[in-house]
């Protein structure tokens, strides 16, 4: 028993080794960029890094919770654009800010609940359910709601739009503030609420959680609703900042993979049940620093992709080296 406990501890330490590796790489990158890149180590640039990674961080919080529950949400970006679309269309149609936000919230909850119901009640595996629902959301909102590929120039006179694109406090942009709030709320929810604890239980061992009598199905729906809400928030920030809602964000697919990258690099295993918001912070830090530094280097986005891919490979192999899969208990379903 004692030995088992000890082993358990050991495994956990190994499990977060990736996290330390990533922190190390991030610090190294920061030092390198500070030395070699003109304009990297400035307060202004820090602010840019923070506001550029706000949406990524918020999305990663949603994805992180889903992955902890051993799920995957491939419809996250579709939900993000869906929320932004609804909001943009309502604002353009002249609805007042609060009303538009209220209706958009309801839309996001429905979108999340559709995922949750497909997964929890219809028992389609998360990856496949969200693969299909991403198509449904994209098609539905592009065809029925927006009736076009993009929506430009949200009327800036609307206070609701203003809110997302201005500074909340001097020096603190609203996106950054929202990012911090989302991060803290996600952490509190995961850590201190019953559904948060059930999320870990589901991710660790679904059957056991279910047999213990935990309300796994309602919680699963809640998890996906939460993810949809983070997606909505990210969508509002992005569309307010760039002044456009664009379905290219979905079809390009790169943002989705970036979010998965953040979650995994941060050290939340896709096998679920492990990790927390701290890991999201680590993952976002690495990606944000890399992206900023490489942009300053004027690396083309393709070169950036290649480098990001290589970083991911190195991280996977390192993780595998420190924390190899147990070949005796390895099951096929673990991807």
């Amino acid at each position, binding site marked *: 028993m004692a030995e088992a406990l000890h082993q358990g501890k050991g495994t956990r330490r190994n499990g977060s080794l990736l996290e330390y590796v990533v922190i190390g790489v991030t610090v190294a990158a920061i030092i390198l960029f500070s030395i070699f890149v003109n304009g990297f180590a400035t307060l202004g640039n820090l602010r840019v890094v923070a506001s550029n990674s706000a949406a990524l961080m918020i999305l990663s919080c949603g994805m992180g919770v889903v992955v902890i529950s051993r799920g995957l949400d491939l419809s996250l970006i579709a939900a993000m654009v869906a929320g932004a679309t609804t909001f943009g269309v309502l604002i353009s149609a002249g609805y007042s800010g609060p009303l538009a936000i209220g209706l958009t919230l309801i839309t996001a909850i429905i979108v999340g609940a559709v995922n949750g119901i497909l997964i929890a009640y219809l028992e389609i595996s998360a990856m496949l359910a969200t693969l299909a629902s991403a198509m449904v959301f994209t098609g539905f909102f592009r065809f029925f709601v927006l009736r076009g590929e993009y929506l*430009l120039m949200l009327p800036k006179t609307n206070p609701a739009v203003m809110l997302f694109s201005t500074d909340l406090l001097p020096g603190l942009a609203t996106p950054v503030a929202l990012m911090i709030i989302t991060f803290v709320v996600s952490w509190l929810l995961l850590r201190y609420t019953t559904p948060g604890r059930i999320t870990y239980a589901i991710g660790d061992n679904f059957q056991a959680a279910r047999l213990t009598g935990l309300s796994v199905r309602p919680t699963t729906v809640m998890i996906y609703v939460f993810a949809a809400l983070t997606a909505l928030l990210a969508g509002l920030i992005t569309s307010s900042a760039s002044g456009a809602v664009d379905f290219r964000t979905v079809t390009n697919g790169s943002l989705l993979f970036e979010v998965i990258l953040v979650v995994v690099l941060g050290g939340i295993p896709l096998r679920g049940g492990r990790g927390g918001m701290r890991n999201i912070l680590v993952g976002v830090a690495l990606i944000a620093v890399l992206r900023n530094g490489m942009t300053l280097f004027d690396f083309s986005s393709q070169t950036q992709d290649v480098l990001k891919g290589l970083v991911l490979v190195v991280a996977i192999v390192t993780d595998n080296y420190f924390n190899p899969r147990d070949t005796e208990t390895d099951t096929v379903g673990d991807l």
Partner: protein
Amino acid sequence: MLSRMKKTMLTAATGMTLCAALALGVGTAQADPNISGKKVIFVPISMGISLTEGWLRRMKEHAAIYGYSIDVRDAAFNTGAMSELLAKAISDKPDVLVVHNPTVQLLARQIKQAESQGIKVLQLNLQSNQPSTAFVGANWTRIGTEIAEDIVKECGAGSGKSGKVSIIPGQLTAADSVMMNEAAFKVFAKHPEIKVVSNQASDWEPEKARQITATVLQQNPDLCAIFGHWDVHTMGAGKAVKEAHLEDKVIVYATGGGDDATCQAVEDKILDRVWSYDADGQGRDAGTMIDVLLQGGAAADHTMLKIESPMKIIKLGPTYNRNLCWKM
């Protein structure tokens, strides 16, 4: 559920047919008997963007007058699907095939195949390597050159500015981006004071353009001009400039179809100068060209019939007029 879906599909399909029938009905009143009932198929890269919607609107007006039909096959930004749709369109044997090329080469073989089967192919906005009966669209090299020359004038020697330029193509491999970049760099090469500090593709996404620009501005607060290859994503860059409160110092260039949103952006000082190829006018040109083709028109020497879209330069100033832009 499945059957309901089918029903929706059918309803939608019936609706479409009805619309087409209605359009036909209106047209037959004054139809030229020669070409009424002829078939035109339009294969755009994607519907739902102002460019293609604007074209289609004008083409449909022409179709209504003469009583020919226009079918749309929406590739939804998937060029792989586009070549399939084109193959099917060719086998449907229309009289005129309107193709919106995504690259100069991708559909070349199918254009050749269609022409060899007697289908007249009208290429829109981007000319393929493969010549066909007709072309209507902008001259990207000219746009690239003109914008670059304007940048040189604003930022080059004697302007007292840094000469730093950031280029934001859609995709570095997209044909229009390639042509515009080539032309622009040719101009810049003659002016060593112009420095291209960034040439990063936005994947046509406003948000990516915004992030790239925000970062670039950090490093180069003295940036002189931004050359965005499409007005839609360049608006993201413009927003970043505005956020940095540099809208009076950085000139944001863009090019696009020139719909209402462009003028709005110019008025809001998100964009400064937009070379518009006027999608609305192009739509009319395309409609006219289809009429001509259906009536048997062809270049005398069997080369291509071409209509190059005239440029409208949209910028604030005495020449500015909201009517430079068109509305859907």
